[in-house]
């Protein structure tokens, strides 16, 4: 019999005890999070062990897919990059490839290289942002500050090329919106070489730090079969030993001409899920440097009519964005506005994986499991 004191009901946002039955406490963690976006996780806790975790997304749902049906293919560009502004090239890439297939226009060679460069720069920008938030989730303030500072090097490059620091809206069906400024290549090589030396610094402070290891090794282990069946993707999938990277599996643009390794680890715990993106950043720098050398000169965009139209057809295009496989399924019925656009985003596909992993975990492990899922609430809610 719990005495309910009316006057002492000082319930604080984010920590709301909904009910107590048979010793199972239902906590709702969020929707305000120190990390990112708004996302509520209803957690049933028995003592310190999580009995069941029910993710409750939808706080920042805007109905992107419905809004897409009211805009033509060009107006959709700045609109469709909103769910994931930290990796805006990653989320626009499949849309642009799909629309090119619908309108069947060719993309000049130089534009393909620029697209690969910008996609890789954006991958690093997101990985650094994610690593920084992972650091602050575990209370490691230096691990928040360093990636944020190093991210500035890449944001500077992206801003130089596309004109905007974060929301580039740089990819357009038919290529990219403008050519790279002339001193871009020389500055990019300098920034990337310094960025690579900065990346190496993270090893001592973060990955080899015994306290960080104690909080992440053996925490939230995702077996290989579960990862595949639950539809996990990106670093979460590769950390469980599945070598599945769309850039290698189904190369688009010029990825087949660049050689890079696909990073996988077998442990599948939070440490592996934090380690894989770090190694992938080295690969991305490798890719960008190769692409900068191989980039031919020439036009960067094929001219588009005012209202491009596609035939009655449907297209399914997928791309390896920073968080994993990002796919667009576009159905067009012949007029300039798409009939139906379905975004299959990696964050939405991590929800079942998160629910599966949190079951049975300790409450103290929740931050390291939740954030190692590469989950971005704004993108998952669309």
């Amino acid at each position, binding site marked *: 019999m719990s005495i309910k004191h009316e006057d*002492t009901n000082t319930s604080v946002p984010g*920590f709301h005890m909904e009910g107590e039955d048979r010793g199972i406490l239902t906590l709702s963690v969020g929707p305000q999070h*120190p990390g990112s976006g708004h996302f509520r996780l209803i957690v049933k806790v028995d003592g310190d062990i999580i009995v069941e975790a029910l993710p409750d997304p939808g706080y920042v749902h805007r109905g992107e897919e419905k809004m897409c049906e009211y805009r033509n293919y060009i107006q959709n560009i700045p609109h469709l990059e909103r769910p994931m502004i930290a990796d805006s090239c990653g989320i626009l890439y499949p849309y642009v490839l799909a629309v090119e297939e619908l309108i069947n226009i060719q993309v000049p060679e130089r534009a393909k290289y620029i697209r690969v460069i910008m996609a890789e720069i954006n991958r690093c920008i997101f990985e650094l942002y994610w690593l920084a938030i992972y650091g602050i*989730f575990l*209370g490691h*303030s*230096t691990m928040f500050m360093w990636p944020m*500072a190093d991210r500035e090097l890449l944001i500077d490059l992206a801003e130089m090329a596309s004109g905007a620091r974060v929301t580039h809206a740089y990819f357009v069906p038919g290529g990219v919106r403008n050519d790279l400024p002339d001193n871009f290549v020389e500055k990019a090589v300098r920034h990337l070489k310094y960025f690579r030396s900065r990346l190496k610094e993270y090893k001592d402070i973060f990955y080899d730090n015994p*306290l960080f290891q104690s909080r992440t090794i053996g925490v939230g282990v995702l077996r290989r079969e579960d990862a595949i069946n639950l539809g996990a993707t990106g670093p979460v999938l590769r950390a469980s030993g599945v070598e599945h990277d769309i850039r290698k599996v189904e190369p688009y643009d010029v990825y087949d001409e660049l050689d890079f390794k696909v990073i996988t680890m077998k442990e599948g715990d939070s440490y592996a899920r934090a380690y894989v993106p770090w190694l992938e950043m080295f690969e991305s720098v490798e890719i960008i440097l190769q692409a900068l050398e191989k980039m031919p000169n020439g036009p960067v965009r094929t001219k588009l009519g005012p209202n491009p139209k596609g035939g009655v057809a449907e297209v399914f295009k997928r791309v390896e964005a920073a968080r994993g496989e990002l796919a667009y399924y576009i159905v067009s019925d012949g007029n300039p506005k798409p009939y139906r656009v379905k975004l299959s985003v990696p964050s939405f596909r991590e929800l079942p994986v998160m629910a599966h992993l949190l079951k049975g975990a300790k*409450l103290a492990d929740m931050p390291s499991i939740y954030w190692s899922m590469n989950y971005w609430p704004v993108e998952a809610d669309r």
Partner: protein
Amino acid sequence: MVIAMATVSEFKFSEFVKSVLWLLFWVILIFSLIVLPIIFVILFYIPEPVINGVRINPYLLLTMLTNPQIGAPLIKATIESTFFKIAVFPGFTFAALFATVLIYAERKVLAKMQLRVGPYHAGREAFWWANSLGGFLQLIADLLKLLGKEIIVPAGADKPIFWAAPVVLVVAAAGLIALIPVAPNWVIADIDVGLLAVFALLGFFPLTTLLASYASNSKYPFIGGLRALYQLISYEIPLILSVLGVVILAGTLNLTGIVNAQNPYWFIILLPIGAVIFFITALAELERIPFDLPEAESEIVAGWLTEYSGMAYGLIQLANYIKMYALSALFVTLFLGGWMGPQIASSIEFFDVTIISAEEANGVTWFAIKTFGIALLMIMMRGINPRIKIDILLRTAWSKLIAIAFINVFIAVALLYLGVVPIAGGA
């Protein structure tokens, strides 16, 4: 509104006279009831100090103050008086100043480690030399801000304890300073069981933290308070055990005795494990990263001092940093040979009267350098470590640290038995 109107419109001389008389009455009343008794007590009950043969009566006192030449011995007397020691030098003001320097150093050093700037604008344009120093007036700005903020007492809070907790914390932290010897005979309370007194005072903190979190009557501080209690209690045992080795080698509990016992070799060379454990447990005692579980917990962001605002919060922060100074000073006294160090400072004369002897000055400078070094190491710990989990926190305390502390004690006994260290009996 009405009152303002009346005074402004017309001026009555009678009103003016009345207010002047009223004011005079209050001045005389306060003067006679309060100020006069104080003067009498000072003049008649405090024995005039005898300085080199001459008894200081009030009239001589005034002449001395006017002419520094004659006043020199007076200054030397005041410096040696216990009131000055308590209030100013090794006592509270020195600790508070050292704490403010620590706060500023923490923000600047942490910022530098994280490639950012830290406090920058406050005080930059104020002085010509302050340009590179950055925001050193930031602390005064924070102090004024905290003073200005309203102290909110939550509904249903247990008011007396809620108000008393910050004060008790500061008092306990200040108490620690009284026991630490700064220079050869520069210690406020040179009691024989100095180390025991330190641990007695350290016992204050878990109790006060729990009372504070209980008193603020809301869910978050309650949980934060419980976690603080787990942590402080479970880390006090390794703290005491780690110092056991030092006491065995020094043979005395008196802190000055311990420092003197470290003459040839500092205890950190003889008992490195004890030093490491003491440092770790000191971090846990201070609730600093990697042990700041009670303060900020990422999945339920809470802390036992969330309900404190305004100067109450300011006092707790001051207590934290004074405790940080006290514990790093304790580390220096126990393991780094307190004030011992090669002679670098000279004595301070004032009109051919040596106020502070060369040996004392040197002791103080070495003590300050070592304490600041240890404090910097504590600050660096905050820069390079994440927070650890609650279960790891308790498991390390109970199983690992206590076991290693016993090993340290065995080493101390072995050193004593093998005669490496002479059996030092007494001070």
